[in-house]
């Protein structure tokens, strides 16, 4: 059984209050280190020049966007099967951060693609499925907020996340297939041999984003708990 199954919102509220600042601190430190390694230490790429430095945010953001959707769907499944309030709130708290990272991945991808491929947008499988992912996030957030009863929104959105997580690989492969049919050669990341400091910078940034996501999710779930439980005695006593 999972941790959230036993934790009541009031104890989790306090726990999240203690954990969230630490997560933000770790994110800031890792982010600073990652930026230093990525922007100062890592050498200029022989083929792409300086612009490759965008990948230090682009790749981690793309990872996070997909990973967060998966985590969100797991929380959704948990909330549907065990009917736990906290899991549903966590799923709702993760969605805006996931959408934010999806947007960042798309934006930085466009500004990386312009100098390297010569176009802000190409109908590449990765980009297209990332765009669809952004709409899946928007759908999740909109569906969750579309009901008078927040519990109703929780459960509908959780089911949508599950449908979406099953569909995401299908969407990715269908777009990949469509792309190879139409363009012949797909644009890819290969051709650059990665310097160690590039990899280090990317991993540091990935962990920084990770820590940031946990921090924002915890901070947001605290607010959600306050809103939902505002009539209970423990919130009144705060």
């Amino acid at each position, binding site marked *: 059984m999972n941790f959230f199954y036993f934790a009541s919102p009031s104890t989790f509220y306090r726990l999240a209050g203690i954990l969230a600042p630490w997560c933000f601190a770790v994110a800031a430190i890792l982010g600073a280190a990652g930026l230093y390694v990525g922007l100062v230490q890592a050498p200029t790429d022989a083929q792409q*020049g*300086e*612009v490759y*430095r*965008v990948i230090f*945010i*682009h790749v981690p*953001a793309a990872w996070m966007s997909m990973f967060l959707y998966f985590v969100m769907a797991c929380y959704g499944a948990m909330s549907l099967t065990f009917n736990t309030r906290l899991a549903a709130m966590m799923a709702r708290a993760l969605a*805006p*951060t996931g959408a*934010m990272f999806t*947007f*960042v991945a798309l*934006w*930085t991808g466009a*500004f*990386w693609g*312009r*100098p390297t491929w010569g176009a802000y947008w190409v109908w590449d499988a990765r980009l297209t499925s990332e765009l669809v992912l952004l709409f899946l996030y928007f759908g999740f957030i909109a569906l969750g907020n579309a009901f008078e009863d927040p519990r109703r929104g929780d459960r509908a959105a959780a089911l949508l996340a599950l449908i979406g997580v099953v569909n995401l690989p299908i969407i990715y492969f269908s777009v990949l297939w469509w792309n190879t049919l139409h363009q012949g050669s797909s644009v890819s990341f290969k051709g650059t041999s990665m310097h160690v400091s590039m990899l280090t910078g990317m991993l540091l940034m990935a962990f920084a984003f990770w820590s*940031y996501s946990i921090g*924002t999710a915890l*901070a*947001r779930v*605290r*607010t959600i708990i*306050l*809103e939902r439980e*505002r*009539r209970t005695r423990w*919130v*009144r006593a*705060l």
Partner: protein
Amino acid sequence: MNHDFYIWMSYGMTALVIAAEIAWLRLHRAQALRRIEEERDLEAQD
């Protein structure tokens, strides 16, 4: 070729979006707290 524009646009937008999210989180929390406060005051009046 100078790529500063693209790098600045990428990093700048990321910083902006993260700042916006944190500001929104704080605003959201302040709203929730204010609402609790208001309801508590209303009940105290009753």
